[in-house]
């Protein structure tokens, strides 16, 4: 099972200001790695990663009209895994599949007695959502409703 736990928060994403909610900006060397990092980031915004064991995997497959839509839909599907099914992950890998993406999240069922909840994110917004090429690779900006 992949373990990218060396991705510390400091290098994984930066928070930016939004009045009522949380925005993050993150970079990656490739488009696919950007999606994988965003998946790890959303998990880390919600639950302390240290206590999450890599016991199970969940898979998300989807396609969308644009990279921004893909980011929105991918993170929304992951958020649903946490909020509706109680699955929390510490790592993620992403591959291209049939014109879309196939993501694998590695973690375990959330247990409020063992895991440390940081905050509940409620939605991935379209607010100033961007996924684009940057000087050194790829960059995304995402705002979450809390």
């Amino acid at each position, binding site marked *: 099972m992949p373990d990218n736990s060396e991705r510390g928060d400091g290098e994984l994403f930066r*928070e*930016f*200001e*939004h*009045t*009522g*909610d*949380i925005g993050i900006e993150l970079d990656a060397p490739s488009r696919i790695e950007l999606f994988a990092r965003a998946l790890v980031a959303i998990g880390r915004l*919600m639950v302390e990663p240290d206590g999450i064991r890599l016991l199970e995997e969940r898979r998300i497959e989807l396609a969308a009209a644009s990279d921004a839509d893909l980011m*929105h*839909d991918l993170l*929304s599907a992951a958020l*649903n895994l*946490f*909020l*509706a*099914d*109680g699955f929390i992950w510490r790592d993620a890998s992403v591959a291209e599949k049939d014109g879309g993406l196939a993501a694998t999240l590695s973690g375990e069922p*959330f*247990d*409020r007695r063992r895991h*440390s*909840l*940081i*905050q*509940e994110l*409620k*939605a*991935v*917004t*379209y*607010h100033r*959502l961007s996924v684009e090429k940057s000087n050194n690779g790829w960059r995304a900006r995402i*705002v979450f*409703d*809390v």
Partner: protein
Amino acid sequence: MELRRIHDYLWEIPKSGAMRVPGRIYASAAMIEQLRDDPALQQVANVATLPGIVGYSLAMPDIHWGYGFPIGGVAGIDAEHGVISPGGVGYDINCGVRLVRTNLRYDEIAPHVERLADALFAAVPAGVGSEGAIPSLSLDEMKGILRDGMNWAARAGYARATDLDHTEENGCLKMADPDAVSENAYRRGRKQLGTLGSGNHFLEAGRVDQVYHPDAARALGLEPGQVTLIIHSGSRGLGHQTCDDYLKIIGRRMEAYGIHLPDRQLAAVPISSDEGQAYLGAMAAAANFAWCNRQLIMRLAERAFLETLRISERDLGFSLVYDVCHNIAKFEEHTVDGRTMRLCVHRKGATRAFGPGHPSLPAAVRALGQPVLIPGDMGRYSFVLIGSEKAMRESLGSTCHGAGRVMSRAQAKKSARGRDLIRELAEAGVTIRYQGRGTVAEEMPSAYKDVADVVGVMEAAGISYRVARLKPFLVVKG
């Protein structure tokens, strides 16, 4: 952005570009100075571009940057020819506030506050991984809740007839269509009935510490020293998922209707379209869920009071003063430019504030105007207001909804570093229990405007009037 002063508490963004109507913002001169460079003003102008908007794109003094609509935004849209925008309702459909009064006096329960805090925290589930008061709802039961709202709660023994009388729309939007709600939304909501949620949601036990309008306070059963409970929550994951689902559906269909808007989060389709009708049905269903959620939280809280204080229901006297929603779209009749029109009024972070005599108001307060509940931050105070006749003429029967943030969550956390906020609150006489790490910092009092300034603007503008001020002594946060 150009701003014209209409009077000391009302400012206008003149119509320009694609705006169909001017924008109008209720604010003091000091507030408007702080807002000049705020993106929320551009959002007021963006809302003014929605097809079918009439009168003004309105904003209340607790305005701040939202998604599509600003928080604090109000838009009246022609029900026949206009559009519906999920961004004008928000993610937390029927997020709202209910106020409960008791027969208790603060002096009597002061020695029991710590135990009461523990009991409320244990009784009302808050965040992820917790289950609601009825954890095993079947799909049929869920559909009944979404279709019938508080009528379901009454049938199931969770609500009294007076609870329905004292809730906007009697706790049920009849246009609800449970089949328009996605499977994902059901999955998110199925264990959340009777849960508080996180973010800015809370329970707040307080005491009436000032009465400004004795007749209205008497009609609402409020008197100085009395213990009250405020419940602030909404439709939980079910509402968020519904908003997200329809932002996507509606965003994809705008082009087909020839609708072009400056912000994707403003996505809108004609009210009469299939997608518009489906969203309205789903939104109403989520609103009905939210009313039942607040109703169940009220019952859980009542039990916590009874078990902690070991008194009878009669001695406790737990009864609903009123329940308002502040994220909703509703069909209402209003007079605009001398013409009576049926409008779809979008209120996002704004509260209905109907004036005296409105037939939808409960008999006990009809002559005075609608009760309006305005929570402040957790360290200072909250307010009970009543709506006015002027609100009907000027603000589509709407007023503010809360204090409004002045600091982002990140700023608040930064500003809280090195401070013992729990002790600061204790020194201010407030006991707190909380679930999520960081919530207390993000929600600390100085992250918000002083709500007294916000309600003061609306009173000075003649839109809503203060009835009473409530001072918190116990707060439970998700």
